[in-house]
């Protein structure tokens, strides 16, 4: 029932969950993850199909080191874009960030649809394959997730992570304590973009074809649902949310296409029924130190 292909998708879901989690951990609702995912994927699709030096073979093969280079470049390009956009919007109140990130998703989608070299509505296809079987992608996705998860885990113990938590609890108080709130929020936003960009680069190869629909507003909704279900108090929450909510619709397929209704219900009811999501610091503590000591046990929204 769960084959390697689905496992890769689940891991990509977990990665995108982390991408939404990072700004949220600093109290910023960003819906821009699909834009960065699309940018990373488009870059990888273009490079591997157009740039011969990367070593795509006539038979559709692709060297693994070139793939790693693309993951790096996809992450970097998304990060630079986030830096430019974030500088513009992060000094404003949270509501502007939510709106501006939606705008970014739409601009990127329309650009990929209309640019002369991205293949229009059909997109880019026959993207070369570094692995002949899904297990190779599985390994690669695990590697990415270990990197991103490790980063988030380290972050929770670092001054940057603590500053993010402080801003989330009370931005004004954090600023009064001398935290450079704009810089902290910008860092979280850029890291979020890099995770999404690299994931997009991997997904483009895995899916073999890439078009503007990969980064639509729908993806904002699904990835947000990952975080709401899993919880955004620790990084394990969005990972679990991403894994579960990617697998569930596939397993429910016989019921019919209720995927987005399900995700909508999670987003509508989650913040009311389970404000902290499935994985809470208190739960981790009960399970015996699987996560760090929570900085604060109060039930903040």
């Amino acid at each position, binding site marked *: 029932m769960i084959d390697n292909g689905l496992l890769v998708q689940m891991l990509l879901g977990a990665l995108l969950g982390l991408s939404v989690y990072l700004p949220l951990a600093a109290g910023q*609702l960003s819906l821009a993850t699909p834009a960065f995912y699309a940018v990373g994927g488009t870059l990888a699709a273009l490079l591997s199909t157009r740039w011969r030096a990367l070593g795509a073979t006539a038979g559709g093969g692709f060297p693994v080191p070139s793939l790693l280079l693309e993951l790096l470049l996809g992450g970097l390009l998304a990060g630079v874009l986030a830096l430019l*956009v974030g500088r*513009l*919007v992060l000094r*404003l*109140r*949270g*509501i*502007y960030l*939510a*709106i*501006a990130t*939606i*705008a*970014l998703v*739409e*601009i990127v989608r*329309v*650009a990929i*649809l*209309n640019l002369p070299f991205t293949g229009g509505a059909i997109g880019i296809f026959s993207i070369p394959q570094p692995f002949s079987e899904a297990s190779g992608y599985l390994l690669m996705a695990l590697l990415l997730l270990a990197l991103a998860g490790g980063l988030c885990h380290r972050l929770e113990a670092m001054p940057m992570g603590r500053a993010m938590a402080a801003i989330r609890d009370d931005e*004004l108080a954090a600023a009064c304590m001398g935290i450079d709130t704009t810089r902290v929020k910008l860092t979280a936003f850029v890291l979020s973009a890099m995770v999404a960009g690299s994931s997009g680069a991997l997904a483009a190869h895995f899916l073999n074809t890439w078009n503007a629909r990969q980064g639509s*507003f729908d993806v904002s*909704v699904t990835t*947000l*649902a990952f975080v*709401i279900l899993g919880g955004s108090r620790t990084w394990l929450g969005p990972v679990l949310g991403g894994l579960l909510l990617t697998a569930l619709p596939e397993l429910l397929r016989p019921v019919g*296409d*209720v995927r*987005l*209704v399900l*995700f*909508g*219900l*999670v*987003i*509508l*009811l*989650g*913040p*009311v029924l389970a*404000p902290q999501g499935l994985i809470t610091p208190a739960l981790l503590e009960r399970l015996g130190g699987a996560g760090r000591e929570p900085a604060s046990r109060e039930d903040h*929204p």
Partner: protein
Amino acid sequence: MIETLLQTLLNGVAGGGVYALVALGYTLVFSVLGVINFAQGALFSLGGYLTFLLMGGRIGVNGALPGWGLPGGLPFPLALLLAAAASGLVGLLVERLAFTPLRRRGADPMLGLITSLGAGVVLVNLLQILMGAEGYAFPQGADALGGLPAALAIGGARIRTIQLLLLLVSAGAVLALPLWLEHSRQGQALRAVAEDPTTAQLLGINSEAMLRLAFFLSGALAGLGGGLIGVSVSLPGPYFGIGYGLKGLAVLVLGGLGSVPGAIAGGLLMGLAEALVPSEASGWRDALAFAILFAVLLLRPGGLLGRRQLEKV
């Protein structure tokens, strides 16, 4: 040449009127709650589909009940009004499900962004299950408009009657709302709640009822927009309202969050800007609103007519 220009301007103003409707819907809720109702786009879709069904339209082959339709068909003006009212009622439901529980718990109001987005997603996808993803076209011409000619010749330009209607109805709603807010007792009560809910309550104003009124009106404005666009263009699928909802957000920032005249001016500007995009670049038209949004954030974050942002401590 003049005719083309006239046509373009009319297109722009008519489109702008609809954007103003959507943005006013956001503004009503924002001024009372300080948060944006992300379900607005879904209510826009709902208004379009309800107008279609009330006029006697049948569900297509991909819907849940192929071939089903309401018995009989109402004339367009009545169908539009009923659809707007029904969208307003669903707007109340959104308030009940997405905003009330958070308020009761005293949670961060920003969470309303998330829950209302969820409500919108559920609504649009239920519509998709019921009606299918296919597009629907309204009956055009004399039938739909109750005997009016399909097009009028004004100053040499041929102008579709439905477009004039679209312009008149949205202009009517857009002008009536500020007058109502300014001069009627209920409008003044609503503004008092927007200014300070606690003081308004002490003055004997029922804040909760005013809040519900804001959500009803906001949903009705969205439904009105959806019905008008559906009749004048078509219903290209349940997601069509989401696009208008998102562009309405750009209009909102352009005009200044919470400003009624700003929402109207922003809507008109956005409609005109889109109408002036040359047809060779029409694929980029959908990105224009969001490019303008970024320009506004860069140059004038408070919006064209917004108040200066003052953080309350």
